[in-house]
């Protein structure tokens, strides 16, 4: 038996697998494909203060190794979410992360206040990084001060854990990671989609009605992995890896790079039962290597960093060190320079 449990800031999770926002429904719609308990937490599609009808079609376009989307945060707004979706989560053996989105700091705060008292919600994921609103300009995801201020304001508006979802469309994601950590985030989700586009040269027609949109799927995995690794190096709060994860191997790569947990997004479109199988498949892989605790491999990448002593790993983050700070068992993973094991 492999111990898959991890600590995601204040949350104790039985395994490190979460769904990604906007790719696995709002509530329990997918329970026939993935038993709720098989995912450590279900992340909602972004909820906004007011209903949003979303962008015109075509909203999706296939690309090599993935897809583009410009859904435009279609959702029925926070009132409908509280009324229709949250009651589904009563007595369900998994955690609920509500992803909140807004186009102003004030609306983010209002969202957090509105939902703070909802017992069904275990944490918020603050979507700073949707490329399909505000003209794709990503104001909150590209400006360290704005990102900090939004997280700090949401921090004051709720006692629930908050995870900041970052965008890969920046020069130095580590700066953003530090900014949201300073703002009081309990964790970071890295990353949202990459800005991309498609066009048919014969007709001149773009693949998406909005021309540009968000690129996701296996093709973005190297970029997402690098982003998550940079974040994990820069901060002491846990990082949830997201982007192109399809298999247990993919997920374990993100953990070794420093992530405490992972989210599975577009891969659910190719096989909607995949998210619910991922944790068990990770356990099987670890077993073949004789590893009995998944947390032991977190951050064990041979990149010259110390696992325990490096800044941001196992230092000063209460409850977090069990995942990041535990030395790897000798002989199970390659030795690292400067490791304090």
């Amino acid at each position, binding site marked *: 038996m492999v111990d898959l449990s991890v600590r995601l800031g204040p949350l104790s999770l039985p395994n490190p697998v979460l769904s990604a926002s906007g*790719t696995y429904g*709002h509530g329990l719609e997918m329970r026939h494909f993935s038993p709720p308990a098989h995912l450590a937490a279900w992340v909602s599609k972004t909820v906004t203060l007011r209903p949003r009808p979303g962008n015109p079609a075509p909203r*999706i376009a296939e690309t090599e190794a993935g897809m583009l989307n410009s859904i435009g945060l279609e959702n029925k707004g926070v009132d409908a979410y509280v009324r229709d979706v949250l009651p589904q989560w009563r007595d369900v053996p998994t955690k609920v992360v509500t992803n909140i989105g807004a186009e102003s700091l004030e609306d983010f705060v209002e969202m957090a206040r509105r939902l703070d008292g909802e017992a069904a919600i275990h944490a918020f994921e603050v979507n700073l990084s949707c490329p399909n609103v505000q003209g794709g300009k990503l104001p909150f995801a590209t400006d360290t001060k704005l990102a900090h201020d939004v997280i700090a304001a949401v921090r004051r508006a709720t006692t629930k854990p908050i995870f900041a979802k970052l965008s890969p469309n920046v020069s130095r994601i580590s700066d953003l990671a530090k900014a949201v950590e300073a703002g009081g985030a309990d964790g970071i989700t890295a990353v949202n989609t990459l800005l991309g586009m498609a066009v048919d040269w014969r007709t001149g027609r773009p693949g998406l009605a909005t021309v540009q949109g968000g690129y996701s799927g*296996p093709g973005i995995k190297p970029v997402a992995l690098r982003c998550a690794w940079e974040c994990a190096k820069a901060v002491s709060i846990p990082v949830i890896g997201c982007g192109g994860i399809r298999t247990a191997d993919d997920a374990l790569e993100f953990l070794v790079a420093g992530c405490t947990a992972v989210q599975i997004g577009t891969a*659910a479109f190719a096989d909607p039962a995949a998210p619910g199988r991922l944790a068990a498949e990770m356990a099987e892989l670890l077993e073949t290597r004789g590893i009995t605790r998944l947390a032991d491999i977190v951050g064990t990448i041979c990149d010259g960093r110390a696992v325990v002593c490096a800044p941001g790993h196992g230092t000063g983050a209460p409850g977090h060190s069990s995942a990041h700070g535990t030395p790897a068992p000798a002989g199970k993973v390659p030795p690292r320079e400067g490791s304090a094991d």
Partner: protein
Amino acid sequence: MLPPVPAPPPDARSQEAVVLDVRTCGSDGVVLAVEPLAPPPPIRASRFYMLRREDGLSPFIPRPYSIYRQFGSRLEFLVKVMGKGSRALAASRRGERLRLIGPLGNGWPTLDGEGAPWVMLAGGVGLAPFPMGVEQALAGMDGAAPCPADRLHLFFGAANAGQLYDLDRMVDLGVEVRTATMDGSQGRRGTVLDLLNDAWAEGRLPAEVRLLACGPERMLEAVERLADERGLEAHLSLETLMGCGVGICNGCPVPTRPEGALGHWPNAKCCVEGPVFRTADVRLAGSH
């Protein structure tokens, strides 16, 4: 308790299916026969599955296909070869395995024998949901009276004779089948709407008919206009782009009519609220 948010049907599964055989059909199509690992229940016509090869040949996003024929656990899909996804499916060999997600969507309404005749308008590969629709109507659906054969009409149109897929088999269904081609290579020169207008002009059909249509967008828009003008009941089986087929990607919006049954929200999800919609409830892109 069912979630009030649109959700995939509870009988849908994501599973592997074994390819039984692939036969060519028409000038640019194949009929792909598969057997899912878990035996499927009888599938309602005009429901669909998402299909994908998992050997790296298919694109990452699965493709939606209507159930064409079902013989016990043998499921057949009529696949028009268009791009990467359909090419990969058409190249499948006996014994290979595919990812099969479904059955999905709502399917045709109850094709009862009580009211006006049903006229099935099939455009090209839009034929796929009709043969089983005919069979199920003749057998009686949802406890309703079986539909007599003389109240079912299949009007089948295509660009040319090569796209009148399996026409020889359609005439065996036991209902009236009429054909039209744009190039006149088979049947009337023109469209399925011309066939309908002919039938009205010649008094072969009453003014009140109930329409079922599946085919290219322009054809469906024409059916929508006709239904609006004449106040006819019409059900369209729509083929939007689909990312997931199970309601989780929001990539398949169909604009709704504010006054219709789905008017509480500007878009319906084609995959979980359709693919069959009443023209009274939706408004096709380009028609407004």
